[in-house]
């Protein structure tokens, strides 16, 4: 169990500024219809992920039940209820990247990092994800680390790409 889940009140104290930001976002959307997903995007931007406490806060302040908020957040692959690693390594497996060898890149990543897809390294620095088409099909296959797009990647390039993020 995470520290936050054990003692939400302590966490809230520490994260007061973050919750204030979230309150402002909810305020901003208060006059508009159907903004739950947009608020969840903002919440994930602020907290890095959507732990139970944050979803409850959103629910309480937008007039939803927690189960409803959770039913929406769990539907969409963009929302995560687990903390992010320092660097997300995403391999695109859209059709173009698949045809151009995206699968080999995943195998190489798994070999180098010693983890599977959806898993994080023990030091919580890297995690491997498969992503659907990022719309950079002209550059296939692509690997996206955080927000940086690497184009026409070969398995041999993977180690060098990861090295740029170690210690960052």
């Amino acid at each position, binding site marked *: 169990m995470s520290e936050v889940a054990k003692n939400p009140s302590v966490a809230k104290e520490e994260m007061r500024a973050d919750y204030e930001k979230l309150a402002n976002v909810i305020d901003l959307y208060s006059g508009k219809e159907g903004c739950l997903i947009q608020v969840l995007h903002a919440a994930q931007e602020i907290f890095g992920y959507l732990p139970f406490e944050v979803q409850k806060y959103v629910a309480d302040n937008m007039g939803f039940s927690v189960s409803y908020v959770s039913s929406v957040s769990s539907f969409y692959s963009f929302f995560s209820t687990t903390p992010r690693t320092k660097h997300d390594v995403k391999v695109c497996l859209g059709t173009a990247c*698949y045809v151009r060898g995206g699968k080999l890149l995943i195998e190489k990543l798994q070999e180098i990092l010693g983890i599977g897809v959806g898993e994080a390294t023990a030091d919580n620095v890297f995690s491997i994800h498969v992503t659907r088409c990022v719309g950079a099909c002209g550059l296939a296959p692509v690997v996206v680390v955080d927000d940086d797009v690497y184009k026409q990647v070969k398995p041999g390039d993977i180690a060098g790409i990861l090295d740029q993020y170690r210690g960052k």
Partner: protein
Amino acid sequence: MRIKNVNDLKLIADQYNAELKKYEHTIYVCGGGGCISSKCQDTKNFVDSYIKEQGLSDKVNVIFTGCMGTCAMGPVVLVEPERIYYVHVTPERAKDIIDRQIIGGEVIEEYTFFDANLNKHIPCIDDIPFFAEQVQIVLNKCGKIPFDSIEAYIAKGGFTAVAKAFGMTQQQIIDEVTASGLRGRGGAGFPTGIKWSAGMKAQGDRKCIVCNADEGDPGAFMDRSAIEGDPFCLIEGMMIGGFAIGANNGYVYCRAEYPVAVERFNKALDIAREWGMLGENILGSGFNFDIELRIGAGAFVCGEETALMNSIQGERGEPRQKPPFPFESGLFGCPTIINNVETYYNIAEIINRGADWFAQYGVGKSKGTKVFALAGDVINTGIVEVPMGMSLRKLIFEIGGGITDGMKFKAAQMGGPSGGCITEKNLDTSVDYESLTALGAIMGSGGLIVMGENTCMVDTARFFMQFIQDESCGKCTPCRIGTKRMLEILERITQGKGTLEDLDTLEELSYTIKDTAMCGLGQTAPNPVLSTLANFRDEYEAHIVGKTCPAHICSALAKYYIDPEKCKGCTLCARNCPVQCISGKVKEPHVIDQNKCIKCGACMTNCKFGAVIKK
């Protein structure tokens, strides 16, 4: 300033065009999605500062544009008035271009576009077949103006169509769109005019007009390019649609995977509001209109129009049962018209130039142009816009430049996970809605993945089914469970464990799912399987009966051999083999024991002499 009427538009256009005339040269730096990944921002920053440093600011105009089209060659730069098209322009190359062309007047041919078919560099953009064969209506401003300048948009004739539309009746606008023959560019091809007519006739205090920018088909990036390169054109198209059906609220639903499109469109909305082109009494017409951008959260099914509306409403993106259709009861229960991005990009030109002008392009019931995203094993990957009716052969081999690495063409996949493949024998088919559907493929939204001979079609079918399995929302049984069973069968076949009866089961499941799934996602999900079965049944049979993968892709069926001619006996493969199935003495050719081999490929990855062959 605030634009109050048509005269203001003309004033802005004249001022902007006069400003442009002051410069001797214009350097267009592409800021499209592909070029951003190739670090075009560095090139742009360098060009800006170097031009300043050289004291050329009065003579050279630097413009950061949207996508120019050749996405694998980024960063690309166009220099006017000579219209020289440079590719792979790093800051170092940019310095050379400024020094030698802008200052020295010399064209640096080795930096210009290389045409693989003609085997030579082609400096002038107008001579390059990739561009010369295109007809641009949707993309007529994309890549040619700064994407964040409303003045540049107006100078190219922007907002004159909406001004003209305000002088027409709702019925006149719809008649014009109907007469043009424009059909929905999202893939299904429903006539836009008929849809709008239903929207206009629908009763309701409030109506909505929605743009589907949830471009989810893997391999499709046309809409992204259009929004990033020319966001104001989407605003204008939606405004005309809103006026025609009587909607004052517009919503654009864009997928979260496109942060650049989101950023640029939001900025365009702010600018349009600031200049009075969104808000109240636009151009003094008395018409009020505004647009809100809603961002998706990574669910493919939200490209289906009813699921999309649920997602805009902040709910789970599950499809709704039809009827009621969106034009009866759509977003927030209001009559709603939903069109794809590309559809809206055609509207302004149809209104400005008329239905007849638009309908001169295209064939039969498919009028106008279609934008395609060329990707896969094709030399010129990128965005192209061609008149409907062009042959696929011309599209892939002349514009696309042919297949990479000297491979033979195997198939073109159109329409993503909902579509099918076109093979060599049908390459001369005209690209239009009816011809493609007759072949078991679909026009789709425009993703065109070219596959060379090293692509396994069974594995491709498995790939699409995996995609559908991951993205099925789970609401209806045929899609949730049927596609799972299909995936299991396909996985068995790619592992060499399939039976010939499996093929019959696949077909039976396919037709059942097509007939019974609730929404378009499920109804079209079996298409890639049916299409590959129809065209490549021999490949399925090779996996099942021969236990081989003709393309050597399915790793469970591959066999690894060591070429004794090439093997130096370095022992690296034997040391890296996880099951110790490689034997041989040092400095002598090694041998793989096929009975023990688990086909992991470690030997091949590690061999420094290319001696390990996969067959």
